[in-house]
């Protein structure tokens, strides 16, 4: 009996092991067949491949739908763009370039490395009434399948961008086109294509030229490829997996959630085939592993390296360097300006019992040692933040503002003047109410965790009881949206065009991101006045006043601007990081060992 059962066990184990080998073989075969890749000629694959570690995969490689950072980076390399844009570091203004025209002349110091030959438009003409912009397109640009890129591709794509069925995240770009003021863009009148190389956009109101250029340079899709796809099938069309572009790279393979491989497109003249033969975007979700891969040379670029890891990383591998881009991200402590309970119950706006007074909020700012947070965590990669206009936007930034100092004595005096006096337990009290609240933040952000602990200690030292609570990101964001929180720590990444009404607008129903409930009619007026200026620099005076008001009112405590830090392998040459993106001129990058690899 024992022998029989033992044989059965052995047979079963053998069968299981065989099955396992078959599964392993199948799993590797399916991957290989799916990718249909060929090894780049000449040398080791890594010698001609740039490897970039990404936190997450692209959602779509379709410019209408792609909404992740990875998508945007890859779409920019695959598809043609009407204009080339670059950030002028001397002024902080965006510049737009066609093949034969620039929006503004830039000093050599502010000049980027973007080649105007990367633009599909030859030139443009803005009408005198600022209601029409006419582009003349090049006639020598072709999609990867050999069909010419024509103005009709743009009209077709804009109609898709505006479709509520497709729900493109870039619908907002169509907000000035004819008909948009009545709720529906009239595409027949708003976008005209008299011939294949002429593209006309018409607006219902005068639009500043820079904004018109920004909003009319959305990436097109090839109309001939997509014209038969039904709108309700657009989001799951198989064509989304085979992007047809005209840019310096084309998609070679996409193993979802694993890697995206781009190969230099030899036929591209926008402006030329990518210099590096192959770029691989590898999805590595775990930060420690991304860091380790950079250290061992398995990847060449990792974004978002934490300052605390610089020393060990550079010590472990001298072939790594840390690069930074401009100041575009800031952290803040949000104080609810209004009593949310009352607002939710009756719709009435009343000051928050703790944070309703500007003087209290100023005291809170002065009680927080922002320099200590910067010195302790960000070091030279942090700058004290006064308002939400970045010092990188030099044309608009108010440099006369003096940061509120760390001054606990003055903070105590301000609170005393507001009636907040120490109670028997040392915690401030006013009319029987203790100055005690919960400061929320989202999970998984080491920088904010560090800052929140310092904030808690700082506030405790002046008699404020601040409890810390971490929420899962999705839950945290929902609480913010519903204006459920009294105090929280979060951050914003700003756009390069200043448009802050969504964050500070007094109409709390319209201003979706005014989580604190701040209301100041002068801020509303200044934002509107600035929008009406046809040249951005003409609005400088408005933005200076805007910053003075925010600095005075302290609707939130602006903490610090963060210089985002990226880890680069030294084998990369020619890279130029810019506030508009780490991969801003990636098609011009070179790999040292690959210099001899023929394209």
């Amino acid at each position: 009996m024992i022998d029989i059962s033992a044989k059965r066990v052995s047979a079963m184990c053998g069968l299981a092991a065989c099955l396992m080998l078959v599964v392993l073989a199948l799993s590797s075969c399916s991957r290989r067949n799916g990718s249909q890749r060929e090894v780049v000629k000449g040398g080791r694959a890594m010698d001609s491949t740039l490897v970039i570690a990404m936190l997450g995969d692209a959602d779509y490689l379709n410019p209408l739908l792609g909404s992740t950072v990875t998508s945007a980076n890859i779409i920019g390399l695959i598809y043609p763009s009407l204009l080339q844009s670059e950030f002028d570091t001397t002024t902080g203004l965006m510049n737009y370039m066609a093949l034969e025209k620039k929006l503004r002349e830039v000093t050599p110091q502010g000049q980027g490395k973007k080649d105007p030959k990367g633009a599909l438009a030859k030139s443009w003409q803005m009408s005198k009434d600022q209601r029409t912009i006419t582009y003349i397109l090049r006639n020598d640009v072709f999609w990867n399948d050999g069909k010419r890129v024509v103005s009709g591709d743009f009209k077709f794509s804009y109609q898709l961008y505006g479709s509520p069925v497709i729900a493109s995240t870039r619908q907002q770009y169509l907000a000035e086109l004819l008909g948009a003021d009545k709720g529906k863009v009239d595409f027949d009148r708003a976008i005209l294509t008299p011939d294949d190389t002429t593209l006309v956009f018409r607006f219902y109101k005068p639009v500043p030229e820079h904004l018109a250029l920004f909003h009319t340079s959305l990436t097109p899709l090839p109309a001939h490829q997509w014209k038969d796809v039904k709108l309700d099938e657009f989001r799951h069309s198989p064509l989304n997996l085979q992007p047809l572009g005209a840019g310096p790279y084309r998609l070679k393979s996409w193993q979802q959630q694993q890697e995206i491989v781009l190969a230099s497109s030899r036929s591209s003249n926008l402006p030329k085939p990518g210099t590096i033969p192959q770029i691989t975007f590898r999805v590595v979700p775990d930060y420690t592993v991304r860091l380790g891969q950079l250290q061992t040379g398995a990847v060449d670029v990792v974004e978002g390296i934490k300052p605390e890891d610089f020393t060990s990383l550079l010590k472990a591998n001298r072939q790594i360097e840390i690069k930074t881009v401009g100041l575009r991200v800031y952290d803040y402590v949000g104080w609810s300006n209004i009593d949310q309970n009352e607002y939710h119950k009756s719709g009435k706006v009343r000051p928050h019992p703790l944070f309703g007074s500007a003087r209290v909020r100023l005291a809170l700012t002065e009680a927080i040692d922002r320099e200590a947070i910067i010195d302790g965590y960000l070091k030279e990669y942090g700058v004290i933040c006064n308002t939400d206009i970045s010092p990188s936007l030099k044309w608009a930034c108010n440099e006369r503002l003096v940061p509120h100092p760390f001054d606990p004595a003055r903070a105590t005096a301000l609170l005393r003047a507001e009636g907040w006096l120490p109670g028997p337990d040392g915690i401030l009290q006013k009319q029987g109410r203790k100055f005690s609240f919960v400061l929320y933040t989202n999970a998984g952000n080491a920088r904010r965790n560090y800052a929140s602990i310092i904030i808690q200690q700082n506030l405790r030292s002046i008699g404020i009881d601040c409890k810390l609570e971490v929420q899962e990101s999705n839950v945290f964001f929902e609480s913010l949206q519903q204006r459920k929180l009294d105090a929280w720590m979060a951050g914003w990444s700003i756009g390069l065009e200043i448009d802050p009404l969504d964050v500070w607008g007094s109409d709390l129903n319209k201003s979706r991101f005014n989580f604190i409930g701040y209301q100041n009619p002068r801020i509303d007026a200044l934002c509107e006045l600035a929008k009406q200026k046809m040249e951005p620099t003409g609005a400088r005076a408005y933005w200076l006043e805007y910053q003075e008001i925010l600095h005075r009112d302290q609707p939130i405590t602006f903490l610090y601007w963060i210089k985002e830090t990226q880890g680069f392998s030294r084998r990369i040459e020619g890279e130029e990081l810019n506030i508009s993106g780490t991969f801003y001129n990636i098609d011009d990058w070179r790999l040292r060992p690959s210099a001899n690899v023929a394209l």
Partner: protein
Amino acid sequence: MLIYILKRLLIAVPLIFGVLTLTFFITRLAPGDPAAFFIQPGISPNVAEQIRAQYGLNDPVPVQYVKWLANVLQGDFGRSFSRAQQPVFDVIAQALPITVTIAGLTLIANFTLGIFVGIVSAVRQNSFLDRFLTVTALFFYSMPEFWFALMMIIFFALKFPLFPASGLNEIGAEGFGSVGFLLDRLWHLVLPVTVLSINGAAGIARYVRGSMLEVIRQDYIRTARAKGLPENVVIFKHALRNALLPVITLMGSSLPFIFSGALFIEVIFAFPGMGRVTVEAIFARDYPLIIANTFVSGSLIVLGNLFADVFYAVADPRIKL
């Protein structure tokens, strides 16, 4: 036995269905919004509404449930919210072979290592080696796997770069040929499978030790020794084979642990398997994908348990099903 298997499968249907219904309501009622990603400055407020309408999230939850039920009964689990609206089973079809590979290799490593350590401990009961193995097994058994994974990466991928820290294959592995590609894949699986299996192996080792000690004291073992059989034959042919029978039941019950372990192993080692799909689906509030994952994992676990029971009966004719 066939009737027994059929009965078990029939019982599994309402069980899995109940799990899915619970999952449906828990995910819908938990805070968070699948369209939250589209609520950003610079994105029209209409977009989130349009997305919600497309996903059918504007209906009351009971209505959503009835619609979902009608679709599921027709075998349609829907399309993923977060992965380019792919049918959820397409997403799973891409991920499942990877997880099954990891789970299978882990299972083999678990039992091989666990049985080996268990035998040594039992045969050398109360020796220094036994105590050493017991302490080591308890050490690994109580160690958090995610921490252990990071330590293994730091040690074997950074300090002594013997194994890769992430991914399924090397860049350019396509050029290695079929055997080279397979070996490259196995090389990438060494660290994760080790991490996943060491913890389980420690548990199995304790179990085998106990089982072996019980068997060794049986009369027929004494008889075997009395016959003058060599100790190797006594241990491996007579004692081990009988001691292993109860271990078979562990196979089925190991599956849920291996699957749940794969959740973070896949995140840490960047494998696009079921674990990562599940974790990302939860963070993105991708309801259809969460439910489909629950369905697949639940079914595999039920089938795993059934397989273990049947295997046990096949292996030991004393058991009648």
